[in-house]
């Protein structure tokens, strides 16, 4: 997770932003139906294709481990018998294409294989952890998105005033700090050294759910909120300033509309378009960035499972988690594009 949250929209997203290259319209589409459905179907098919490509990349990358995979996994305790058994279990004796087809075929049937370390189905091993991680990302998203939109908009309205300057400075500082620094600082402040009011780690008992003990959620959620909010707030501010300076906002003001109506009806929807893209990227980033935060707080999520799987060279788990995160990227990008289209009438007509 070396890459930080990206502040700029990129890839397929730019095609939908005003000013970007135009989206090819599907001619001959039934006008009676809402064209957004056709768009969703097309994007879902595209997403499936992307996932197919990603699955090939993941498969090839995990096969490219140096040396004999079975030996790498078993390490010093390898015996000829255990090596042979593992090669058989992983189908390492079969051609690479057959190995891929066996794996991908299993995935389509909902069978991600068995963890080699735990000797359990991957789905059972990471099922609970997916729920825990998803809940953490959800909490962070529900707090950080409205918060960043508010901060960004208000800073744009109060441009160059003290709030704007303070917000710019604060968001810049938090954007520059890696989340493990933020997390460790929060632990020192609230759990171990300065105050002793919050738990330092979240100990979710197996079979339990993170929401059973909400106090343990506070610091991990806060860390993620502090990691994501600055980016979104800064994009929201930039986008809002651009919109506030546009002709149509000036026109609306000249027509004598109240400032509240100008902002709510004309400025905000147009400023939100680019912001949705950044929110989606940051939420997708959260799914990966959550690994660091889970490590700091000993939170039982997919991050812990992935870290453990990498150190055990547990290929089926690594492949499943990598594909899951890739899938999340595809879905979040789709949602962001749909939201952008819904708030941007120009794009709707082009569908």
């Amino acid at each position: 997770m070396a890459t930080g949250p990206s502040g700029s929209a990129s890839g397929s997203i730019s095609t939908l932003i005003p000013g970007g290259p135009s989206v090819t319209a599907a001619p001959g589409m039934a006008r009676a139906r809402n064209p957004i459905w056709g768009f969703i179907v097309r994007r879902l098919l595209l997403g499936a294709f992307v996932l197919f490509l990603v699955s090939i990349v993941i498969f090839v990358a995990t096969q490219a481990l140096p040396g004999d995979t079975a030996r790498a996994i078993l390490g010093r305790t390898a015996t000829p018998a255990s090596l042979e058994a593992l090669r058989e279990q992983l189908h390492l004796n079969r051609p690479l294409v057959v190995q891929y087809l066996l794996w991908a075929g299993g995935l389509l049937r909902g069978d991600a294989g068995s963890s080699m370390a735990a000797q359990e189905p991957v789905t059972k091993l990471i099922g609970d952890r997916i729920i825990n991680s998803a809940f953490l990302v959800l909490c962070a998203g529900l707090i950080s998105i409205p918060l960043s939109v508010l901060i960004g908009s208000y800073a744009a309205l109060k441009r160059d005033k003290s709030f704007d300057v303070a917000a710019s400075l604060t968001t810049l500082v938090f954007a520059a700090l890696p989340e493990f620094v933020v997390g460790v600082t929060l632990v020192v402040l609230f759990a171990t050294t300065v105050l002793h009011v919050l738990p330092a780690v979240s100990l979710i008992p197996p079979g339990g759910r993170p929401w059973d003990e909400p106090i343990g959620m506070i610091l991990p959620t806060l860390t993620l909120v502090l990691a994501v909010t600055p980016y979104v707030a800064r994009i929201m501010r930039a986008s809002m300033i651009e919109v506030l300076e546009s002709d149509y906002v000036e026109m609306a003001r000249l027509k004598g509309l109240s400032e509240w109506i100008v902002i709510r009806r004309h400025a905000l929807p147009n400023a939100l378009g680019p912001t949705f893209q950044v929110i989606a990227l940051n939420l997708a980033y959260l799914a990966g960035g959550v690994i660091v935060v889970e490590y700091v707080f000993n939170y039982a999520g997919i991050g812990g499972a992935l870290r453990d799987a990498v150190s055990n060279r547990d290929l089926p788990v690594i492949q499943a988690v990598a594909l899951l995160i890739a899938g999340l990227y595809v879905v979040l990008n789709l949602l962001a594009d749909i939201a952008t289209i819904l708030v941007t009438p120009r794009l709707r007509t082009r569908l």
Partner: protein
Amino acid sequence: MDDKSTLEQMYLRGNITRRQLLVGMGMLAAGLSMASVLAACGGSTTSGTGGGTPKKGGTFRLGVTGGGAKDIIDGQNIVTKPDQARLVAGFETLLVYDENYNLTNDGLAESVTQDKPDQWTIRLKQGITFHDGKTLSADDVIYSLQRMTDPKQGLFGTGGLGSIDPKNITKMDDRTVRLNLKQADSTIGEQMGQYYNGMVPVGYTRAGTQNGTGPYKVQSFTPGQQSVHVRNANYWRSGQPYFDQVTVIDFPDPSAQVNALLAGQLDAITDIPFAQVSVVKAHSGLAVLESPGGGWLPLCMAIDLEPFTDNRVRQAFRLMADRQAIVTQVLSGHGRVANDLYAPFDEGFASDLPQRHQDFAQAKSLLKAAGKDGMTVDLHTTDGAAGMVDVANVFAQQAKGAGITVNVKNDPNYYGDAYLKLAFSVDFWGTRNYLPQVANGSIPTAPYNECHWPPSGSNYLSLYKQALAEVDKTKRIALKHEMQKLEYDQGGYIIPFFNNLVDAYSTKVSGFKPSKGTLNLTSFGHGYRTIWFS
């Protein structure tokens, strides 16, 4: 003060109960050693911090690093460090090592004796029951030994029990078992004291119910996360254990573990990062427990591969190491300088051989005599165990002083095909006594003989066989001494240090004290039965 008055004093001070006093007097009368009497009296010998009378109750929460999805619970096997912490709660061995790594009969057996070089007899204590209420009997011992020696099970202890003939274990009566070995072996007693050679009931499997004789029963277990153990109400040592419940929690990150201890979410943790020792010490209500461990990271010179075929080169390399500097730089001082010999807790450890020090002048002259001065050599290592890369780098730095260039090769696939075929490499080992360690790493049949020891023509192997067959302790020690002298003079190991185990705990917990051995936290409070909340 004689033993009886020691017991009386302990009774008067309130360290033991009247019942324990009477039991102890009886045991003394029966001719048992004071150490085992005290241990049987329960906890009083281990009142390290806090002290006072043990109190019942509470949930003890332990954090352990080094676990993951590989975690298991098995009365006779471990894969990860948390496995150790879980095994000792539920399972016990026939003999037990005390705080000074002396073997005692404070375990499930009344005695484990070598009758003849190739024959041992095990006599069980009376009235010990498993968690399900069944009495521990000779049949369970036979089943346990057969499972331990079954190569198909892939158990941790199997390698050290090669002399046991699983088909030749005889039940003499309900509490007595006789082993007729395939060959003479004086180490069976030591093996029966290894924590991973636990006694399990007939029919035991890892996948089935976890049923042992230990102080706690397993209530729940999720690999990589946590396990909950509840008090065994029918435990055979009277009064013990003290906690109602023990929770063992996996931590991937040692810093998170320290934070949880600082925040009061845990009562004890294993293996704190050296950098955090001062943080923990400065915190009121917490204490650091540093115990002398027996783990070691050797630099291994293969005696039959260039440039190490010449013993002068091996001696020169051993003289290039500044061991104290290695302890300081690799272990932050949390270890003891070693002398190229292993098994520091063995009855026959050759501590009288002179300590080697760095001596560049002599190293250079030895290398010159061998025609190898100014040479370059590759040192292979990997991130297999903590410190393996550091020790290679520090040694390479030190070797420059003798004009030798050591290139450190950090190979992620080190334990692949090249392992055990390298001229110069780093490896890792845990605590073992001398002869069991030899069986694992220093004879041609050993699975991990990095140095390809012994040299052809050496009488090392015949000394080893004699030591295995020797029933007399004094004679056996003399033989082990002779073997160690050979390794000290001609061997391929450079052993810079033995590491310490550095743990931390809340001072609310009493009963921890530094102890020699393999396991952290006073062998996890001997299965969480000699520690309590004060």
